[in-house]
């Protein structure tokens, strides 16, 4: 897939780079952990009726959140969207807490008040997503603005989908971030569909990155299924943000390897597309490359998978035993001191 920089403004440190070997192995672990966790939620817990409501997963898109967030500092902030499970894991939210959230348990970060990935934690510098797509774009700008006001060199990673870029809030937020030169990395998961709506019915441009020019912001396109390419683009955008040079738009070309949510069979997607992208699965790609470069062995991969599965088994057990909130908690916490 071709990678081009759309905007004339060059990204800080154009020289591309790769993460340290141990980082690459850590990346593989988080890719596999994300995949396994979401599979468990969507294909097991949801079908068993242990997770209610809507379930959205990022199958096939895991490289984007993980490649961009793996090297973040604890004080950096992420405003994840509904397919960015990896960001929660990398920011240190543990499996049991996440599963409790999906099950509506009191031990989840929203104590059962909200469901699925609609969770956040200021301790982890994770901002809870709200359903209204695009709303987090100006919020990320404001977070970045506060860092500038306080002279902090923290950055914000703000992922969203291609469809969210049609929202007015996306425009207002990205524009303000550019005018104020806020330290934000706007990261688009372009999986080429918004629910059932293909890209060409959402926008009259070929690339989401083409929109960066409207904000005097660099817009870079990367192969979103190549985690190392995402890592490198994010690294440069983060450096640019920390240096006070303002926001960057990174478009990660990828594909949603499921329906829009657990109830959608995606019959509107041409099968060839699934096949094309299946061959570009980000996890197997990294595995092959690590094996080829001798950074990992098949046994180690196998062992990693075992470890992940048992970690999840254990977390599921704990979360299942966790208590539901007390019904009357419904009326608590609307205001301070309640």
């Amino acid at each position, binding site marked *: 897939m071709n990678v081009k920089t759309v905007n004339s403004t060059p990204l800080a440190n154009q020289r591309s780079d790769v993460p340290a070997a141990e980082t690459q192995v850590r990346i593989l672990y988080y890719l596999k952990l994300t995949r396994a966790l979401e599979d468990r939620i969507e294909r097991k817990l949801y079908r068993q009726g242990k997770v209610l409501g809507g379930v959205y997963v990022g199958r096939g898109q895991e490289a984007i959140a993980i490649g961009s967030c793996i090297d973040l500092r604890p004080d950096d902030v992420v405003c994840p969207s509904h397919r960015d499970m990896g960001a929660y894991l990398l920011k240190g939210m543990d499996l049991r807490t996440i599963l409790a959230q999906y099950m509506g348990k009191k031990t989840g970060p929203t104590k059962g008040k909200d469901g699925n990935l609609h969770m956040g934690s200021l301790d982890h510098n994770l901002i809870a997503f709200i359903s209204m797509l695009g709303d987090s774009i100006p919020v990320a700008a404001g977070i970045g603005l506060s860092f500038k006001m306080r002279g902090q060199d923290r950055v914000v990673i703000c992922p969203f989908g291609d469809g969210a870029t049609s929202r*007015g809030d996306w425009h207002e937020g990205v524009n303000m971030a550019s005018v104020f030169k806020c330290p934000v990395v706007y990261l688009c998961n372009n999986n080429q569909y918004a629910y059932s709506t293909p890209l060409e019915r959402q926008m009259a441009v070929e690339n989401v990155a083409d929109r960066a020019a409207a904000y005097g912001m660099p817009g870079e396109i990367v192969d979103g299924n190549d985690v190392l390419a995402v890592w490198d683009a994010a690294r440069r955008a983060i450096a640019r943000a920390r240096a006070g040079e303002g926001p960057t738009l990174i478009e990660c070309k990828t594909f949603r390897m499921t329906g829009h949510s657990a109830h959608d069979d995606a019959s*509107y997607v041409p099968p060839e597309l699934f096949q094309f992208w299946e061959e570009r699965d980000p996890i197997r790609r990294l595995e092959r490359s690590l094996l080829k470069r001798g950074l990992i062995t098949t046994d180690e991969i196998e062992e990693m998978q075992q470890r992940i599965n048992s970690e999840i088994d254990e977390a599921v057990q704990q979360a299942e035993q966790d208590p*539901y909130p007390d019904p009357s908690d419904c009326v608590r916490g609307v205001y301070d001191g309640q």
Partner: protein
Amino acid sequence: MALTTYVEAIRQGIWEEMERDENVFVLGEDVGIYGGAFKVTDGMLEKFGESRVVDTPISESGIVGAAIGAALMGMRPVAEMQFADFISCGFDQITNFAAKCRYRWGAPVPMVIRGPSGGGIHGGPFHSQNPEMYFVHTPGLKVVCPATAYDAKGLIKSAIRDNDPVLFFEHKFLYRRIKEALPPEDFTVPIGKAITRRKGRDISVITYGAMVYIALDAAKELEKEGIELEVVDLRSLLPYDREAVLETAKKTSKVILLHEDTRIGGFAGELAALISEEAFDYLDGPIRRITAPDTPVPYSPPLEEFFLPKVSDVTRVARELHAY
């Protein structure tokens, strides 16, 4: 005779209006090939074609604005909000542009904005809202909340034929849970007219939407105790049926106002004001409100269960009022 679900009734109503009037068209997110998140526009793309079944980008304000523009040119757009919660993103266009055109310059804006509202499906704070009051408080709009398949079909047709902007809030909990036999011929239900779902001499329960069923179930239970509830389904909130409200209040002299929406600023307040203003002398007891508490709609089953008004709330309050 075949039974028609609430969701299918809405689909039929729109479908028949599109056949009747070529100015009618639908627009919204995923209304085309997907047929809408809840399948309300299922099959319309094949039947009516792309120019009358318009898939849009994720732009609620743009969708409403475009519908206004088309309506000003004499079209009759039916805009879908994938969830009524997202109508918040089109709030400005609805309350400032659509609602005020006729008043300001006599320009009619015949359009319908419809979508699934309400809780009970574990949708959480952003897929369970009841946004009706934001629009009930906006002069120039009409607001409709049907509770039955018959009303859903009859009211969507009236909404589409209406010459003013109508907000049509469907209750997603009812979509596939209720069915009834519908007359084969064309029929409409007038906007602004309530209906008495059950006659009773003791206490009036004035409600709308999914809560109509809570009231009816409570009435069945209380019947055994000799307490007769009268259940009035408002069907429309703006305009609302003042006469029907006053009539039942004067008849029973004891009133329960029931809605799924939250309490402060909810529609019960409007009704309480009307009744205490114009039926004061008829009242034999306090007007009682039964509503959701003033919180967002929580996700977890025990919390949402606590949030939603229940049959037991109605029976408890009715017994208190009866004993009053």
